[in-house]
């Protein structure tokens, strides 16, 4: 699937990123191919916000459509409400 289809709170692994420049910028942010990310917010019709550790990155919808990801079923279950909130995840 592509990143724009991700739901809020979903964990994903990045499979591919389009283009050399985007890849280089992504590596700096630590969201290169193979990394695990969490989708923390989806702005309706707008950007997707993903988080890796405590770093949040906004990705425009057009770009998100070109990023392929695979959904991960709970790699590290996020049980603590405090941590859920820290990641901006919706309540279970």
């Amino acid at each position, binding site marked *: 699937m592509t990143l724009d289809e991700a739901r809020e709170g979903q964990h994903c692994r990045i499979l591919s990123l389009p283009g*050399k420049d985007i890849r*280089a910028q992504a590596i700096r942010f630590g969201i*290169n191919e193979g990394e695990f990310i969490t989708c923390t917010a989806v*702005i309706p*019709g707008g950007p997707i916000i993903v988080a890796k550790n405590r770093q949040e990155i*906004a990705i425009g919808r057009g*770009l998100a459509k070109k990023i392929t990801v695979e959904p991960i079923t709970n790699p590290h279950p996020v049980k603590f409400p405090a*941590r859920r909130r*820290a990641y901006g995840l919706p309540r279970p």
Partner: protein
Amino acid sequence: MACHDLNYELKIPPGARKIVLAGNPNVGKSVFFNAFTGLYVDVSNFPGTTLEISYAQVGNDYVLDTPGVYGVSSFNEEEKVARDVILAADVIINVVDAVHLDRDLFLTQQIIDMGIPMIVALNMIDEAARKGIKIDVQKLEELLGVPVIPTVAIKKQGFEEVRKAVAYARKGNSLSELEEMLPLLEKKTHSRAEALLILEGDPFVAARHRVKPMDRQEEIYLARRRRVDTIVAAVVRETNTGASIGTRLSRWMMLPLTGIPLLVLTLLILYEFIGVFVAQTVVSITEEGIMQGYYEPFIRNLIGAIIPPSSIIGTLLIGEFGILTMTVTYILGLLLPLVLGFYLSLSALEDSGYLPRIAVLVDRVLMRLGLNGRGIIPIILGFGCVTAATITTRLLSTPRERRIATFLLAMAIPCSAQLAVITSMLSRLGPAYIFLYVFLVTSILVLAGTALNLILPGKPSDLLIDVPPLRLPQPVNVLKKTATRTRNFIQEATPLFAGGALFIGILQVTGLLNTLQNWLSPITVSWLQLPKETATAFIMGFVRRDFGAAGLYNLSLTPAQALVSLVTITIFVPCIASALVIFKERGWREGIIVWPAILFLAFLIGGLLSQILI
């Protein structure tokens, strides 16, 4: 060579040691800079660009600030500037955010790989602790191979230690992968740092050495990322605590349902502060009270005693558009408080981390106007000064976006000074006219953007930005930023203003003003249905936009006429300064198209409006 240029352009003596502050955006670099350099700081436009570099002499050394970047390369204008300053550095103080170590250490490792002596200031260590992040500083120091000093910049903790540690700066542990790639190039460039950037495919540095950029960027970046992740895994221990109201507020700011009301609220507060408090209360004291009440009569008497006021020189100096009367009143009485108020708000907004969230919120809408969310930044800046904002369009990623943003800025964004005059004129007319004005100008902005997006080939580029944590702005930092920006603005505006006043004054003295008014009357009187004196306002508008609006201020106009003239003057050509910047930024050919196009549109829209309303 970059370093020689830099010394020359910034007037730094060749022998002096250059200490450069480098770091990601929003890590508190400027707080360090302010702490090290004290009150007086030089701000200089960077050679070849218009990005500002702050620097100051401290003892025999020079301390230089750089724009916040995530790495050294040439993805955008900020990075190019940071790259050249870092390349010229003798010692680097790398400020890193302890909360986002995995992001920030990428730059750290890159500078280490460049082989420049450095120290690391591990900033916001208190915030990390609050969020349950523990960092093994000794281990970090060992792994990086450079001194690491924990600091809390906003509480001034650790500053002394950083200052002392500069003497112990050293080259760190570079990536082992580079050892086989670098030596060959290093022989050629005589600089490890530049050799590395050529390996990483930086076309500008490669061109400087007349070699072809290499294509090892991804390989090196990935190796560096692995190294950074290993370091972070070894030194950071996270305990799962710490959630804050910040994360929820951050979400609210970005989701439309809550984000739009929050944005409207913010704009209302800004309007109350700038549009009402500063533009009306403060300006009425400074302009009418102090300047027109005391200063102008004083200077008129003083000069009038030597030169007769009705003579040509007298008119030019102390007449209606006099250099010593109107210019001074206008700059000190009207512009100064406004610009101060605007930059104060803007600096506070910038430091709070709200701007990137607004960019996320409006991304969807701006995509239709051919910009992405980042395009909101020049537009917001444009409400301060269109000229300065036109320069920041450089931060947009494609020429297409720069072109659209420049056009929209020139056409539909009134700058703070102009806005102030408009606000005070509109507030006399009542809420219905205010609404109508805002509605008209917004529609014009949206229509123009949509049209440009359709006409110009290509598509807007996609947003890819870091969303920094929300923070309370630090008053000292905000004030200092405001002071620097205001000083620059006034320095730049004063000569233009004086020149403009002189120009109008000469037109008046020679009677040309009257001729021009009559000559323009088919447009002003027949088509726009305004008194013929409004022509003066439009001529003044060429000099400065706000100057033009001010020219309307004292005319007696019916409410409908006032609205027509205000909409026309808003769209009307940008002032000389911003027209020059447009020419400089976008080239002569484009400037020559933009300029008459806007002039034509201004009179077309104004006229249509007048035919409907009056």
